[in-house]
């Protein structure tokens, strides 16, 4: 029973264009959402997060949108750069002291 779903395993975009990475969740109790980025042979690194009381959070080239009614969030990267090529994991949690539940990840490739 997968509570956090990243249904597209991969995405390829041209450098300079927008990358949109999608994530769906089933647990309506999730109230905090995070995106992690992972390069090969390295551990994941935190990228950006959003609380359920917001619908948008922006940090430089990265913006996360949350649609609670659709149980859907997305990460926008604009403009995309070759260094953004990595695996991106969506993660969710319930309450301030609960464990993170991760999706399977999306492999983003940014073509020069």
């Amino acid at each position, binding site marked *: 029973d997968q509570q956090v779903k990243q249904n597209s395993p991969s995405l390829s975009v041209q450098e300079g264009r927008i990358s949109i990475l999608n994530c769906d969740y089933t647990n309506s109790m999730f109230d905090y959402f995070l995106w992690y980025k992972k390069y090969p042979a390295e551990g*994941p690194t935190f990228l950006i997060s959003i609380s359920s009381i917001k619908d948008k959070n922006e940090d430089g080239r990265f913006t996360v949108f949350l649609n609670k009614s659709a149980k859907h969030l997305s990460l926008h990267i604009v403009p995309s750069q070759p260094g953004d090529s990595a695996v991106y994991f969506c993660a969710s949690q319930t309450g301030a002291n609960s464990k*993170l539940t991760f999706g399977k990840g999306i492999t983003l490739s940014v073509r020069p």
Partner: protein
Amino acid sequence: NAGVTQTPKFRILKIGQSMTLQCTQDMNHNYMYWYRQDPGMGLKLIYYSVGAGITDKGEVPNGYNVSRSTTEDFPLRLELAAPSQTSVYFCASSPRSTEAFFGQGTRLTVV
């Protein structure tokens, strides 16, 4: 800044052998976690700890044990290794339950 340090980086075990994966953090974080990542899958929580002396099971604890005698260290023990435990193991820490900092991982193969 060391952050979260895992040792070893790679290990091959024979079926039935035991080993301990070491994890140390120097950020004085209360929360520590062990995850495993299988190919094409997300990270699954094995065990976690909210402070020294306190540990709890995650999603996939069978075949593993942990201890948390200090704030800094959170070793993961594999007893009687099985091929199903072939995976990449990540240790992480956080000051609260969000925005965890991960180590570089330990790639374990059980043959």
